[in-house]
């Protein structure tokens, strides 16, 4: 019997196969660190007198606590500053490469890895961060781990793990203009639920996935964790190689050729069997938004806020009731009638250059809706520079939006970028949990195109609404996940 992509990568990293119910011992090719989940791991090493086994396979960046304005001033919040300073001390003491605030390679850890060409097909990637699943877009096995596991990887470059189950998520068809990777993944999560992927690696397949850019694939793999999955993967292909080639850490010369030859063997075999399979029709997809307080509570933008009374499952019904109360929404309200106070364009889900281009293409030559605060936060210092080289910053500021420095920012509000209680936000991030973007804040997850149209109209909108509004005006060029 053939093997799936996930099984191939797993088997190629077996240091020892577990016997009698013991876990396998898996080798880790790339270990990413940030300031929040690493301090106790380093302290554990220190207590035990252990070194970092492979500093040359380890890299750290500051992202969760970093401010996105005034980055040359000391960080005001004491806990934030302590975490950052601790990472700096640990990196120095243990010889780990660190990209600090102000450094040209600084940024969100899941943006930095791919951008440097460190993330590549057929490798294992871990980080003390659930959205490590992002890196699976390259055909890597990438997953988040806890702080004890971070210490384990630092000390041994391995992890004891039981194999994950595999699920095929097949998306066939062609996306309509204005529909993007973000809409695909929100629709997948709404279909299988936030627990539907538990214990699985999701492999995204089908013509709609193949036609996505690397940025689009990263958006999809990023949110695999929101379906409860351990990881998400896409088999590498020419799109992957084109993105990777020439990046600072990508293989060169004979190494490149050897790598590509191997990467070409990774795709799931025709006779491989998945533990589960689901299907989605891309032709039917519309711009998708969330109305509730978990990423599975979403619907097409043309729908209305659901009526909990019509939900059959008692738990889901109760969850929907609670969500509507928190979100201050009435059943039956058209989603397009929902007014927002803020728009957040950023996070490891949607803060790469292509995301910013898509956002800018919609807002270009327009001004934002009155009273709406619009914040644009690039995923890394390099993305910021690239955007400025293309003049996107001018488009963004002329629109009336704030152009910020790189970091996690309002994705989780560990820095001062937070919603005020009761404020409502259309956000390109990945979690709409209660209070995620600030205590009492209300989050609607959206794509960059929906974020842009919403910033223009002040209510949840997509570029389709702009077209209707100005049937005579030129249609903005739509570029999202689809190339």
């Amino acid at each position, binding site marked *: 019997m053939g093997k799936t992509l996930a099984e191939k990568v797993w088997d190629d990293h077996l240091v020892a196969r577990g016997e009698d119910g013991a876990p396998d011992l898996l080798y880790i090719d790339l270990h990413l660190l940030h300031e929040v989940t690493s301090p106790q791991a380093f302290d554990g090493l220190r207590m035990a007198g252990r070194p970092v086994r492979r500093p040359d396979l380890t890299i750290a960046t500051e992202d969760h606590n970093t401010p996105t304005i005034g980055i040359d001033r000391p960080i005001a919040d004491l806990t934030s500053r302590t975490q950052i300073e601790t990472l700096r001390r640990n990196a120095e003491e243990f010889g780990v490469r660190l990209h600090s605030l102000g450094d040209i390679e600084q940024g969100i850890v899941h943006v930095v890895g791919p951008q440097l060409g460190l993330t590549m097909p057929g490798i294992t990637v871990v980080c003390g961060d659930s959205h490590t699943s992002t890196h699976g877009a390259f055909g890597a096995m990438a997953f988040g781990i806890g702080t004890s596991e971070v210490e384990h990887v630092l000390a*041994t470059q391995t992890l004891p793990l039981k194999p994950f189950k595999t699920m095929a998520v097949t998306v066939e068809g062609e996306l309509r203009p204005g529909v993007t990777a973000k809409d695909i993944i929100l629709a997948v999560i709404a279909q299988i639920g936030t627990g539907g992927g538990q214990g699985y690696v999701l492999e995204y397949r089908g013509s709609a996935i193949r036609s996505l850019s690397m940025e689009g694939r990263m958006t999809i793999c990023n949110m695999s964790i929101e379906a409860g999955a351990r990881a998400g993967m896409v088999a590498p292909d020419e799109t992957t190689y084109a993105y990777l080639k020439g990046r600072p850490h990508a293989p060169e010369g004979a*190494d490149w050729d050897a790598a590509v030859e191997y990467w070409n063997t990774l795709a799931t075999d025709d006779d491989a069997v998945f533990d589960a399979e689901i299907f989605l029709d891309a032709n039917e997809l519309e711009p998708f938004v969330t109305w509730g307080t978990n990423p599975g509570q979403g619907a097409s933008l043309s729908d209305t806020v659901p009526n909990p009374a019509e939900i059959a499952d008692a738990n889901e019904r109760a969850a929907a009731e609670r969500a509507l109360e928190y979100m201050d929404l009435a059943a039956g309200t058209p989603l397009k009638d929902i007014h927002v106070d803020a728009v957040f364009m950023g996070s490891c889900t949607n803060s790469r250059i292509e995301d910013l281009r898509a956002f800018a293409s919609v807002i270009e030559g327009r001004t934002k809706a009155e009273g709406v605060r619009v914040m644009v936060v690039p995923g890394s210092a390099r993305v910021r520079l690239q955007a400025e080289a293309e003049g996107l910053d001018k488009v963004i500021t002329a629109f009336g939006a704030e152009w910020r420095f790189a970091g996690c920012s309002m994705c989780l509000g560990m820095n001062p970028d937070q919603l005020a209680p009761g404020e409502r936000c259309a956000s390109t991030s990945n979690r709409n949990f209660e209070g995620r973007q600030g205590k009492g804040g209300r989050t609607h997850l959206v794509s960059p195109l929906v974020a842009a149209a919403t910033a223009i109209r002040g209510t949840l909108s997509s570029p389709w609404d702009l077209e209707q509004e100005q049937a005579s005006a030129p249609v903005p060029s739509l570029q999202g996940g689809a190339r």
Partner: protein
Amino acid sequence: MEKFTRFTGVAAPLRRSNVDTDQIIPANFLKRVTKTGFEDALFYAWRQDPDFVLNRPAYQGASVLVAGSDFGTGSSREHAVWALRDFGFRAVLSPRFGDIFRGNSGKQGLLAGQISEEDAERLWAAIEAQPGVGVTIDLVERVATLGDLTVPFAIDDYTRWRLIEGLDDIGLTLRDEPRITEFESRRESWRPKTLPVK
């Protein structure tokens, strides 16, 4: 991790059941960046009371805690084990433990031994009859002895073996070290390296 076979230490009686991890260490101590130095956080709220058992002179330096049923339930925070360990405890005896707490204990070298409700009462009575008395914990024989009172405790074979050998998760993996090195020797040169290029 220190090897654990047999040791004698002062026992402290904690006559409470359902001691959850929030009581062992409140959430506001979780912001710290270290894995040590949590001794001040242990039972933080209760220790504000001068009469709390661990504040009494007789129990200073206690290293064995005899607690009521359902010790360590609640959140998964490893900090609960760190706090007990940093305070000086090497063993906790209770008629029942929270599952995650028990798992975390084994990984951090803290012995969580299960005793019967009756034996908990017997131990409490014996300790309170002579506060500050030493208890001997024998992991090899799985018994706790206080004068002529000897009570058995239960601990699973795997955790017992790890404690006796002094193996934490990392120590356990490093027993396979030659295999890791061998794997690394086969690692292809195209695989990523993070050291700065050029």
